[in-house]
């Protein structure tokens, strides 16, 4: 008996052709997202970089579209260097603090919490992300203000002297929490913390509990196990989280505008130069700096072996 395959319909013939040519299928599937990524993301980034090599004519105030390093010479003035330093130190401080707070929470979620507790904690971590960022930042302004709840609470506990002592610390202090680097730091930390917790949870989920037991079995105290086994294996998660907290703090221009002592951060400088000042080349050059800082950061993380255990 000979069996003939039924005459296929057009769609089934297309399916067969794609099945037999997997590379064609892959190309068709990947082309739209790759075009999007290439043109919209990288294209605009490239256009931005290009802008930074133009300069503004001092007399006319017009943008001169010729290759020049004049804008970069302007970029490295004393005042601008302060902005970079201020922003980078803030981003680093926020990142370290976020990692210190996030790790125990993430570890608890992965190792100890029941399914129910874990779901609740996930909700608690993500719930704030569902409300408007601006509302939350303004809410913090009220919390940290001189007439706010923190001041009131300190007074109730007879700890006003402590709050005053903290606020009188040079540089990071100020007239009130909402007008100080401490205030900006607290709000940055609050806003970006979920972005540190979630990657660490993901990293710890992939560390089998048997590794902790094996370490104890081989004579390691809990502290040694933490240092030799858990932290190295969670490190890629910490790095992933720190990329978020660090780069988001580097680029943010809203929080330091609302809470802080009005000394500008990189984001605010970019905002001013491209807006009121109309100096697009300088604004573009300003954005190159965080890109470079992030590139250095990622290189350093790679050197430290952060991606080895991936």
């Amino acid at each position, binding site marked *: 008996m000979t069996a003939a395959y039924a005459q296929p319909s057009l769609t089934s013939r297309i399916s067969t052709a794609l099945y037999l040519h997997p590379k064609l299928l892959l190309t068709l599937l990947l082309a739209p997202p790759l075009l999007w990524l290439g043109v919209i993301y990288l294209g605009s980034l490239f256009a931005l970089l290009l802008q930074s090599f133009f300069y503004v004519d001092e007399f006319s105030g017009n943008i001169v579209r010729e290759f020049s390093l004049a804008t970069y010479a302007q970029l490295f003035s004393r005042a601008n260097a302060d902005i970079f330093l201020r922003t980078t130190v803030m981003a680093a401080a926020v990142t370290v603090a976020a990692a210190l707070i996030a790790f125990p929470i993430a570890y608890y979620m992965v190792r100890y919490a029941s399914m129910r507790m874990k779901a609740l904690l996930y909700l608690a971590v993500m719930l704030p992300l569902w409300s408007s960022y601006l509302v939350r930042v303004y809410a913090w302004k009220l919390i940290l203000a001189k007439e706010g709840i923190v001041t009131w609470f300190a007074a109730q506990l007879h700890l006003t002297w402590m709050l005053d002592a903290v606020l009188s610390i040079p540089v990071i202090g100020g007239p009130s929490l909402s007008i100080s680097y401490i205030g900006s730091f607290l709000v940055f930390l609050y806003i970006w913390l979920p972005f540190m917790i979630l990657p660490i949870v993901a990293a710890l989920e992939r560390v*089998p509990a*048997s*590794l902790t*037991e*094996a*370490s*104890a*079995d*081989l*004579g*390691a*105290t809990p502290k*040694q196990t933490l240092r*030799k*086994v858990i932290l*190295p*294996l969670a490190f890629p998660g910490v790095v992933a989280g720190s990329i978020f907290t660090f780069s988001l703090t580097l680029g943010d221009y809203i929080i330091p505008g609302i809470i802080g002592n009005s000394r500008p951060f990189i984001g605010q400088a970019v905002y001013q130069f491209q807006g009121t000042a109309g100096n697009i080349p300088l604004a573009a050059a300003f954005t190159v700096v965080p890109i470079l800082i992030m590139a250095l950061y990622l290189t350093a993380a790679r050197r430290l*072996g952060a991606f*080895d*255990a991936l």
Partner: protein
Amino acid sequence: MTKLPEIAVSFAGVSRRFGEVRAVDGVSFEIQDGEFFSMLGPSGSGKTTCLRLIAGFEQPDAGNIAIHGANVEGVPPYQRDVNTVFQDYALFPHMSVSENVEYGLMIRRVPAAERRRRSQEMLGLVKLEALGTRKPNQLSGGQRQRVALARALINRPSVLLLDEPLGALDLKLREQMQEELKALQRQVGITFIHVTHDQGEALAMSDRLAVFNHGRIEQIGAPAEIYEHPASAFVAGFVGVSNVCSGELARRLTASAQPFAIRPEKIAMFGASEQGPDGWLAIAGRIRAVTYHGATTRYAVALEGGGELAVMQQNAGDGEPFASIGEPVRLAWSRRLNQPLAGDL
């Protein structure tokens, strides 16, 4: 130096509950120093929990555990002189093979030079000298298992715990590792406590074994003792294949209601018209199914008057089956091979 006591590990009335489940329920046993001891049972029978109690990952709710005579109540795993080979090997993925093996020594602050020497020695013992610089994910299952062994043995523990160490390996490798583990144990002279659900493995490797069921020990003994003289229907059925005869069938065969087990390979099969040797138990039946297993062929024989017995024959000749489905046969065996069983059936 004082001589170590004879008993490596002892359990006295040990229980461990998880919520409502009694994982280990009043278990008592003693393991001799230098013995290869297996804990055999189906999953959930409490054998792994017993191993974890010895390692210190679990604490008993009741009873006493002693390792070399010392009560280990409240002693954390990192202070116990035992090491474990984990079921999933639990190799540290961020460390090389050598670093994994040296881990215990590194924790004890043994100088680097001695660490290196001893890890080379250990890797030699498990035939992996050349792979010290590899990462665990670059090794095969069998190689990982050897690294896990070396990592545990380098600490020279007084007791080595093995949690289903061969479970993830394929059949050929498993048989090879069974022999190697046994040889290794003789070489290092350490007490090995081995958890497995594979009865063949337990029989082949152990000096003695304990059969676990529902958190209790059904029987402890040497492999041949367990196999030839199972104490309960559970042991008879779990260790090897057994025909368990009870009630009416037992009465028909032996004129007594005392239940007993008879191994399929002990039953001789004859043609329907032949008679078995004098004094043997005999019963007529009809072949219901024939299963060919290579070295042996297994027959399911439906008995006259109800019931069924499994019979196993060596394929010593040309491999032609003794009888085909539907043929009448006569089964016979010596009465003294019946193994009386205790307990409920």
